[in-house]
Structures are given as C-alpha cells and as structure tokens.
C-alpha cells in the first residue's frame, strides 16, 4: 500500500504563502497605524441582518444558524426572523446609549422582506455592508461564474437602490467563498470584505480586478460562535470580549500602533431579552476605557490608507 507520488511532492513549498492572494507579513513588522485623535483601539461592531429560507438547499452545506429539522422547520425559521422584528430594536437602543455607529451586513433579500427595517437603517445612516442574497445562497466552487456574479449583482443593486449608499463592503453568507469570489467582488465595485480571519488589522488582498482590503472580523469572538457553537454562557462571552479589549489596548500601548476590536453580532441571538443586558454590559466596559474610538469600516480604512 502506498499513496500516490503526488502526496510527497510540494509544489508550493517556497518563501511566503502557498497562493498568490496576499503577501506574507507579520503584524508586528508593519508600520504602526495611527487612529484619529491618538486613539488606541478602533471599535467596529457589525450587525448581521439575515434571511434563512425555509426551503434551504444546504448547498454545499447548511449555513450555521440555518434549518436543522425536517421541512418545514418553523422553529428555526421564525426564531431567526425574531432578530429582525424584535431583537434588532434592542440593539439599536444599546448602540445609541453608548454612542456607537455600527455597520449592518444585510442580505439582499431583506430589502423586499422588511422594507420598514431598511427604511430605518437608511434613516440612521449607518454603513450598509452587502451580506449576499440570503443565508442559503452560499458562494462556493460548484457555482457557475455567471450565477455567482448574478447573485452578487442582485444583492448589491438591491442594497444600493434601497439605501442610497455606494455599499463597498462585503461579508459572504457563512463567510464561504468560491475560488473566484474576491475577483468578482472587485469587479462589482466592492472595496473591502471580511471573510478572512488571518489578521487583526486590514491588509491588501490581490484579485484579477485590483486589490481589495480585508477587514478583521474574528469568527471565534462572535456571539454565534461563543454562545451557540461553543455553548458558553452570555457572561463568558462578555468576559471574552472584555479580555480581548483589555489585551488589545495594552498591545496598542506597548507597540505604539492602533488596534481594532471588531465584533460580529446577530440580533436573533443577542437581541433576546435575557441576552441583551450582556451586550450592554460589554459595551459599557469597552466604551469606558480611554483611547477607544467607535468607528465604521470606512473610517478605519480611511485611516489605514492615510
């Protein structure tokens, strides 16, 4: 018995990465980033506004948070909808109380499904990020290029029309990509995306249609991962976020370079009555630290490009 000879050949064994999408670079070797007003820590909150269809195809896999029961899985369908009907209003109040301007990553399908909510977002003027068409439209290698491009176009068109914003940011549903996703994003006027979790600071990502920025948005600190996947308590989520905040502030102080604390939030999870208080306590801790700069992705990227 033996494996194919290919298994002991290593064509990408060379300096740097095993692909050409970005340069190998260690964070501590880079020029320190300076945030406006001498802030140490940029705080970016991103809120996901999502539609999980009842007739989930599950291709190529069921998205986290998607349907798990035989059709019709009304429990999960309606519980996700809860976030957009009820939970998100608790989040709005918390953001306003702590004077934070989050971004909202919105599925394109939400424009038709909840026009009142889109009108509220438009009125608030917070940055809108494209989040794919819906949570079952996963970008993956099995899609034809034309089909993936069509989903992207439809998503961006509907969000741009409905909000009047340019919409230059992208977060893929389930953060899944096809090998072409970054190229198509650049072709469709997207400037930054947040699927890759390999850095704590933005960096340049190469595509066939020019460079994108990647924005750091750690998966392992988001409410869904900590509370729903790991089954940690809400208190533990708060502790983890506060520990991250304190650590990054210290690292910013020691290194002289700005850091980013970014949190991805789901109204269907944290917007529940028993959880919202833990978000409030978390925000209270973060915003009471000196040197914290609540910022949007566009503000952060403007400071990076300066």
């Amino acid at each position, binding site marked *: 018995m033996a494996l194919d000879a290919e298994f002991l050949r290593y064509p990408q*064994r060379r300096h*740097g990465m*095993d692909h050409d999408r970005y340069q190998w670079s260690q*964070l501590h070797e880079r020029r320190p980033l300076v945030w406006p007003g001498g802030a140490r820590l940029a705080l970016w909150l991103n809120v996901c506004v999502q539609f999980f269809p009842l007739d989930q195809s599950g291709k190529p896999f069921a998205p986290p948070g998607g349907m798990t029961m035989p059709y019709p899985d009304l429990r999960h369908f309606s519980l996700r909808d809860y976030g957009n009907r009820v939970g998100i209003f608790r989040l709005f109040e918390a953001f306003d109380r702590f004077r934070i301007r989050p971004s909202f990553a919105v599925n394109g399908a939400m424009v038709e499904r909840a026009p009142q909510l889109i009108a509220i977002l438009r009125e608030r003027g917070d940055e809108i990020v494209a989040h794919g068409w819906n949570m079952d439209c996963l970008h*993956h290698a099995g899609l034809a290029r034309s089909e993936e491009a069509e989903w992207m176009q439809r998503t961006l068109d509907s969000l741009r029309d409905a909000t009047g914003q340019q919409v230059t940011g992208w977060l893929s549903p389930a953060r899944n990509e096809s090998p072409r996703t970054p190229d198509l994003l650049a072709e469709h006027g997207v400037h930054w995306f947040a699927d890759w979790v*390999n850095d704590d600071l933005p960096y340049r990502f190469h595509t066939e249609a020019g460079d994108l920025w990647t924005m750091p948005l750690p998966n392992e*600190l988001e409410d869904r991962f900590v509370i729903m996947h790991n089954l940690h308590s809400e208190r533990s989520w708060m502790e*983890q976020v506060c*520990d991250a905040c304190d650590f990054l502030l210290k690292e910013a102080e020691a290194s002289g370079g700005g850091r980013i604390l970014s949190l991805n939030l789901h109204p269907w999870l944290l917007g529940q009555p028993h959880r919202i208080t833990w978000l409030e306590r978390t925000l209270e801790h973060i915003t009471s630290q000196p040197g914290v700069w609540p910022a949007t992705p566009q503000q952060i990227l403007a400071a990076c490009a300066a």
Partner: protein
Amino acid sequence: MRADLELYDYWPYRGRPQIVWPGGARLAFWVAPNIEFYELDPPQNPQRKPWPRPYPDVGGYSIRDYGNRVGHERQMRLLDRYGIRGSVSLSAALCEHHPEIIAACAERGWEFFSHGIYNTRYTYGMSEQQEREMILDSIDTIERHTGQRPVGYLAPALSHSEHTLDLFAEAGGVYTCDLFHDDQPTPVRVRGGQRFISIPYSLEMNDTIAYVVNRIEPRRYGQMLCDNFDRLYQEGATSGTVMCIPTHNYQVSCPHRLRAFEQALEYITGHSGVWLATGREIAEHFLANYYDVAHAAAKSHIARERGGSHGA
C-alpha cells in the same frame, strides 16, 4: 490492524523509582508551541479530509494563518517574559515559508522538533518508504535551517502508521510526543531496539483540544492549567513529574484567550522546584539517569506479574 502495537508494557505509577530533575526540581515544565503550516489546496488523503468545507475553506485556512501572522509573536514575547524557551513542534515546510519565525525562535535558543512537512499531509496510507522519506525530509530541512538536528517527533496532525515510531527511531530520533499514557517519561519499544522514550505531551492541556474539540471557556482553560500543575507539583515531590502545555498560535494567542494562558504561566513559574526545560533536555536527563532503571524496573515488574500468575 492490531489490538495493541505493544509500544510499552503496563507499568503502574505506584512504586516506581523517584525521578529528581536538575537542581533538585520535582516537576519538569515545558511549553510546546506547534508552529504549523496548513495548505490551502493539499492533495486529498484517502482517509482524512484536510478541511471540513469544500475548497477554498477560507475560515479554516485563514485562522491557522493568523497564528503565524499575528499569534506567534505574542506567544513568543509572553514566554520570554517568564523565562520559558519553547520546544517547537514544527511543520518543516514552515522553514521555507516563514523563515522569519524560525530565526526569531532560534535566536532565543528554542528547541525544534519534527511535526512532519505540512499539517495537511497525513501519514495514513503511506508506504513505509514514503513515511521514512517524509520523516528524513523533515529532519534534514529543520537541521538545514536551524543548525539543530531534531530528536523529537509529533506526527503531523497526530496521524500515525504502525511503524511511525520505529521509523523515527531509525532516523536518529530519541523521543516521541505521540503517546498519552503517562505523566512521566517511559521507555518505548521500537523494532530496532534503540534507546527511545516517550515524554509527556498532554492532550488534555493542549489548547486546540481544549478550545476546538472540548469547546472550553478561556478562563476555565486557565484554571485547568493551574489545577493540572497543582496536582503534578504535589505528587512530583515523591514521584518526579512532567507538565507540558502544547499550544497553537492560532488558539492560545487570540486576544480573548491570552490572559488565561498568561495567568497560568505566572502561577506555575512562581513556584520553586520547577525546572523550566525543553523536550530535548527532559529526554536527555531521563535517558542519562533513569532510562536503565526504568527499563529494568518495568521488566522486573512484568516478570513478577507473570511469575505470580504462573505460580498461583
């Protein structure tokens, strides 16, 4: 397949000769940072998928890259602060991909041991010749880049064959981290009869097992490390123990987790009678002072057991 590879004989913890570590220490403490390279698009091993999601698994690949881009420097500075030299479980190809990391570790006198070529190339299905070639490639590559000829082994992604340890011993290896049967070093039987040992590398204290498999809260992980230390330290006064914390820069060095690790290091290094060692140093001390005793004691234990059962 066999029910037992017979790498070691049963030898109870109770009644063994006491191990005393250098300086009269009762506990040898080592930290083993895994510094790994995972390929975005490796060839598919017939028995184990490298990534749960279809190509490209952006999430899985990119969090591991985070360890090298961001996490490594953090952990290294932390270990510096507590006077701990890492014993690096190294994907040998990282010498080529990221020599900057290798140079920083070498400068600090860290140890490097082999963890295969890539953590996305599994041993499953390899012929003996293929596995030998892979092991020698990893040893030679590490020696070429660090000046150290590695003597320790942790199979890539803990993927083994029946002959993994035989082959590593034949390649000049001295110790393995692949076995989790004991809190002390023990002799390991290899077909060539080399003086070869296992040293404790805890699966339970491994950050990836704790965080990814067992999904433990960071502060609880920190507490588990302290609890693990307390008991091994207490028992070490009469038995002589080893405590290992195996880490991964993409797990332990995340901003929400580093505090727990730091507090545990602060606690452990605050005790007297703790020998801050590398894997190689632990192996060398054991081989020079206890291997023969352990080997003979284990054998006589077995002879006693067998004699007893025959005589009954």
